[in-house]
């Protein structure tokens, strides 16, 4: 059983996807460790300001003498939980909107999809900045803003998936046998649409991490809570790039963002490659 499970997992992810999954697992483990650190971790003054890396302070300290390594670890938890909550919310909204636009009542499809089109033509980053500036910077406000702005792309994708699955033979047979809608959706359509939610989720999580870091970097995050983007904001405010400190102050959060996005991208593209027959490589 376990070898079979491993084999299926390998078939689903491939080598590339497994590397991504391993990387993400490591980052999640660090984030979980961060949750168990005391509340003061990364927030309290523990050393002289601008301290260089030394024993007990591997990445030195910032302008207020706060431990930079602890900021990095605590920030991982905040960035990841925000990304996953946003991804789950967005996938849910996209599934409902896409499903309603695909097979919902007549006359609902056009308004929903035109609404999605309007959202798509608006510049996302500017929307984020405006919303964050006016609505506030708390964790849940940022989650809500992102879920509201990120749903159009996946909902278009899921609408087409619903429409495709609706024309599949076994769904037509199920409808012809007099099965109610919830049965056709739960028993038949879910089998086709379900696997598509994985790449939707992963890609949304990826975009959420980037946008969250961007907002924090611009000073629109919560400056009192450690996060990767906030650390980069202080890097910029203090002109760290003029000294050697960029090496232990700016590079680690930047690398953390890059690695997380890379891990999610590896998982997302390899799952998508395997699920989308048009991308399958036959050679």
């Amino acid at each position, binding site marked *: 059983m376990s070898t079979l499970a491993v084999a299926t997992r390998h078939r689903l992810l491939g080598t590339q996807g497994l590397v991504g999954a391993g990387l993400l697992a490591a980052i999640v483990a660090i984030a979980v460790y961060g949750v168990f650190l005391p509340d003061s971790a990364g927030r309290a003054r523990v050393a002289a300001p601008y301290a260089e890396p030394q024993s007990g302070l591997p990445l030195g300290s910032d302008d207020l003498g706060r431990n930079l390594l602890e900021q990095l670890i605590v920030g991982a938890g905040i960035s990841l939980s925000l990304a996953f909550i946003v991804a789950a919310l967005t996938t849910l909204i996209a599934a409902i909107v896409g499903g309603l636009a695909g097979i919902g009542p007549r006359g609902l499809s056009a308004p929903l999809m035109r609404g999605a089109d309007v959202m798509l033509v608006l510049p996302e980053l500017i929307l984020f900045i405006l919303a964050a500036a006016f609505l506030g910077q708390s964790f849940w406000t940022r989650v809500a803003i992102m879920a509201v702005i990120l749903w159009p792309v996946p909902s278009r994708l899921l609408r087409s998936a619903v429409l495709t699955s609706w024309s*599949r*033979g*076994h769904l*037509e*047979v*199920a*409808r*012809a*046998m*007099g*099965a*109610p809608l919830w*049965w056709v959706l739960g*028993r*038949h359509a879910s*089998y086709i649409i379900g696997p598509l939610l994985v790449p939707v989720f992963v890609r949304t999580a990826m975009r959420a991490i980037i946008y969250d870091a961007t907002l924090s970097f611009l000073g629109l995050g919560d400056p009192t809570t450690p996060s990767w983007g906030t650390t980069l904001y202080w890097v910029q405010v203090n002109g760290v790039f003029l000294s050697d400190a960029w090496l232990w102050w700016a590079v680690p959060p930047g690398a953390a963002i890059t690695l997380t996005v890379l891990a999610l991208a590896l998982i997302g593209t390899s799952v998508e490659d395997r699920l989308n027959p048009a991308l399958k490589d*036959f*050679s």
Partner: protein
Amino acid sequence: MKLTVRDLTVRYGDLVAVDRVSLDVGEGELVALVGESGCGKTSLARSLLGLLPRTASVTGSAMLGDLELAGRQEWTGLRGRRIGIVPQGAMTGLSPVHRIGSQLREMITIHESSADPAALIDRVGLPRDVLTSFPHQLSGGQRQRVAIALTLAGQPDLLVADEPTTGLDAITQGQVLALIRSLGISTLIVSHDLTGLLPYADQVDVMYAGRMAETGPAATIARHGGHPYTVGLLTATPSADRAAGWGSIPGAAPPMANLPHGCRFAPRCPIAEDVCHEQEPALLPVGAASGACHFYGSGRVPRYPLVPRGTTDAGEPVAWASGIRHVYRSRTRTTEALRGIDFHVGAGEIVGLVGESGSGKSTLARILLGLIRPTQGRVELSGQDLGTARGRSLRALQRRVGFVHQDPYDSLHPGMRVGEIVAEPLVVAGADKRGRLERVHAALSSAGLSEELLQRFPGQLSGGQRQRVSIALALVGNPVLLVADEATSMLDVSTRGGIATTLRSVATDRGLAVVFVTHDVGEAVQSCDRIVVLKAGRIVEHGTSADVSSSPADPYTAKLLEASHH
């Protein structure tokens, strides 16, 4: 130029797709390589073109003149110039954005040939103004002719055509084959359609499960006396002549990974004896032909089961449709699919709904299934109005209609076991749990399946078995009407008659009204009691199968019948 293939073998890893096959294409000859899906014919053709995937290995020899093709790595200057490829489905093979003339000139330039576009167009029997046309302005048959002209641009010595008539109607198929024959170039045509090729081929090679089953001149092969498999293929192609009978070969072709011992056809062969299961037969020459059968030339005639005719009269009408019109609307245009149809089907009766694509036959089938509500007209199912029913009452009516979908590879949930699939209508209807298993078993045996399959997934079944699971699924709720939408069209020729036999037996045994939708008038003539011919949304012909096949009233029906007479 002459092509000589000797002991050609194609392997994919451990699987042998083509097993020591020899064949000859003489100077200017047209040779038909015939067999069902998975018999190795396409692998053989691709090995001659160097188009096999990299995982395949080729051994043996294939000499074109003095050029060895088998196992060759370097194909530059051969494909197109020495060997021309006539592609399958010219619908997608031509560039949609270039005129025919410039596509021809491109080919001529690539192959540095001295051919002239106008002369090529003349040669394939098209008018010169085709040169300035785009592919979408041509019919399917004309496009296939253009594809042949493109192949001729490189002035090849040998043509290899893979199912060159797929997607064309019966009348155009004949014209394209006659054209290929008239070119006078050595040609190997790969096809599943033995009867369609017999009038045009010089030589016929029949393959079965990777081996050559029979080879000989077309005239000899056509005489119904050779290899049991060839005889089976001939009888399994339904003729529009009701006297001819429509047979089927029991069972299904073996998978490559699990070939039977001895003669590979023995498990399905009506004249097989012990020796057939033990010893693999070599090609035995008898006269001009030779066949791989222990009893080749012994005069034994294999008898295949024929699709039975209906004997009982139709009972009370089960489904009524009167004055049905249906219009599909999209933003830019409306399409009238049905323009006033009156139709009924009685208990125990099989009614054939015949027409080409776009005739409205599938729309009518979906109206009977309650999937589409007609724009106008009244549909009744055992006295109740199906057209106006909605919600719960519509679903209750739908449970009285069974549906056999066209595509057996898409109509069964891939993640459910056969037992669950067949029981689904009972679960949906909330039927009593205790009786379920018995009803599933009864439905499976009516559909001609054994209970061993209950735990299998659809992916582990053959096409014919899958279609039988579909029939069992349609029967399990004890319906009064069964709608079979092109139920045989995606199956191998040899198993089609078996499905029709099963439909007949459920109509007789269960007193079921059956609507058999098909584009093949031969199938309808052979298996139905009454035939309704649809054209552009109207009924053009209506009568008993015997009457329609012997004296069609409408010229369109007559043309259809003539094209499938053999």
